[in-house]
């Protein structure tokens, strides 16, 4: 979901830094005023995860099921074809994901190297909870498959997602497997590095 994907990029960046804090702090101390290699290694990891995993997964769901992917907050993403303004929304979505990863990294690194590392974990955990609450308060939007108009005017016409309309669940599961596998791989890599 759009509401999850953008914060997820930010959260992932901070999480990677949190897990790899030992090596980041050590290399930052050794590098002195300069940025250490760890800064760029972790940035690459975060941006790669955002650009190669979160963004494609997000665009996949936004292109295939635009209403559900943004839990029916706007009808604009259902009308992107031949619409020069609306078509910018998916593009801005990709941009926001990557920038979210970048800012999560920059802020996390700044906190880590200026004695404010205690802020990192509460920040990303709080954001994770906030995003989860945001989605949950929009119940039952994420359980229904349909259009913006249907959700807001005729929800009875919508299909519950567990009935796997249009093979949505199959697609979603595959995307989540990809996301999870990539995340676990990068997390384990970071743990080993630390």
């Amino acid at each position, binding site marked *: 979901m759009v509401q999850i994907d953008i914060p997820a990029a930010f959260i992932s960046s901070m999480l990677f830094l949190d897990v790899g804090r030992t090596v980041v702090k050590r290399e930052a101390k050794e590098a002195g005023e300069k940025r*250490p*290699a760890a800064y*760029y*290694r972790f*940035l*690459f990891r975060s*941006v*790669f995860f*955002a*650009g*190669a995993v979160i*963004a*494609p997964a997000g*665009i*996949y*769901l936004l*292109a*295939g*099921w*635009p209403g559900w992917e943004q839990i029916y907050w706007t009808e604009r993403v259902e009308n*992107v*074809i*031949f*619409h*020069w*303004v*609306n*078509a*910018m929304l*998916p*593009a*801005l979505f*990709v*941009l926001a994901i*990557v*920038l979210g990863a*970048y800012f999560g990294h920059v802020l996390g690194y700044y906190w880590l190297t200026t004695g404010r590392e205690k802020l990192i974990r509460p920040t990303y955990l709080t954001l994770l909870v906030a995003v989860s609450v945001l989605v949950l308060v929009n119940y039952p939007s994420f359980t229904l498959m349909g259009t913006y108009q249907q959700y807001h005017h005729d929800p009875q016409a919508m299909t519950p997602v567990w009935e796997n*309309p*249009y*093979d*949505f669940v*199959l*697609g979603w599961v*595959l995307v989540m497997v990809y996301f999870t596998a990539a995340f676990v791989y990068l997390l384990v890599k970071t743990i080993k590095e630390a």
Partner: protein
Amino acid sequence: MLAIDVPIAVLSGLVLAEGGEKLIKSGDDDKRLFLRVFALMYAAIFIAPITVYFFLGWPAWEVNYMWEWVDDILDKPHRAGFAFVLLACAVVPTFLGLELGGYLIRKGKEKWVRIGYIAMLVLTGLIILALYDMTFNVFSTHEKYRAGESYSFWTFPFVAGWAITAAYFWGSLIVFYLWLKKRS
């Protein structure tokens, strides 16, 4: 158009390599890592969104009317999966361009980097010329393409979207090339 998105992405990688020539020549792995991160971010921020914009806004035009299925990806998981290919077409060629440029610079063949990106520019021009009608006559769908019902590329609002994305991409490439040169 996807047909030119790939050579343009390679061109971007080569231009960034030339911009960071001194970083590459330094032999410092940290500096090369910086350049790789920079290229990845550049592709993800300045190339990938444009590809997504045109593919979701004008899917038939974006793929030069090669495939009809692009007009109908709603509720179709196997078609929507093309999103992965789309983003890969923006990021992977940029990276390849950067690595190729880096390789040429390390081998002392700097001039080939410039020759390379000029060649990509010429290739892009040739592709546009070869697909002139398809490029400058926009057919909303594949069905309209078959029926010959088009509107001009220069028609608002299509041209407005194109102008904004073109300025966004080319402007950023020039700015970051100069920034890399200065930083080097």
